[in-house]
């Protein structure tokens, strides 16, 4: 299956782009997507401890299942205001 990954702030800078597609085996979870991204962009790993993720614009845990076409967003600690 294919998902879209959105990178923000430090995640965007470490990934070198604001978005990309990612091929994953069916039944993959958020953690699998992060592991796949880390293999291509090792610096992302430093963000994992404080990273939140959203799937289709809702916060999701690392064990959340991903569906084909899902939008996975990598959200470093927020600092609006």
């Amino acid at each position, binding site marked *: 299956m294919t998902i879209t990954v959105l990178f*923000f702030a430090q995640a965007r800078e470490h990934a070198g782009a604001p978005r990309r597609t990612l091929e994953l085996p069916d039944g993959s979870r958020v953690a699998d997507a992060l592991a796949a991204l880390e293999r291509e962009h090792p610096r992302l790993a430093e963000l994992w401890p404080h990273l939140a993720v959203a799937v289709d614009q809702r916060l999701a845990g690392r064990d959340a299942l991903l569906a084909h076409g899902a939008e996975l967003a990598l959200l470093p600690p927020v*600092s609006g205001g």
Partner: protein
Amino acid sequence: MAELTRDPIPVERLVAAITRPECGAIALFLGTTRDHHDGRRVTQLAYEAYEPMALAALDALERAAVDRFEVAACRIVHRIGEVPLTEASVAVVVAAAHRAPAFDACRWAMDELKRTVPIWKKEHYAEGGENWVEGTKLG
């Protein structure tokens, strides 16, 4: 409805839009770009948002302010992109019959905004360099 904008925040229009005859109190907060942070000279801020999720979170904050406090309305506008010194990055405005809940709701919404809305702020420094401001983990 909350708003994200790349342009200067129109304060007078925001205040006019929230004013209503049943209210006697309007509290407004503006966050503006400051020229220093942690001892470093800041020349500008740049904001980035996960726009649809940020808008939904700001809309939810506006509604939550009205649910939690005795206020008639809450409106939030956040600027994204570059925000020069002295210009506002965020405005929260609240209308209420009385001033105590207007202040309480305005302050609460700003506190919540900083820790629940997917927006990021980068500082640019006078001596060169830039840095993402340390933030709060969502969720």
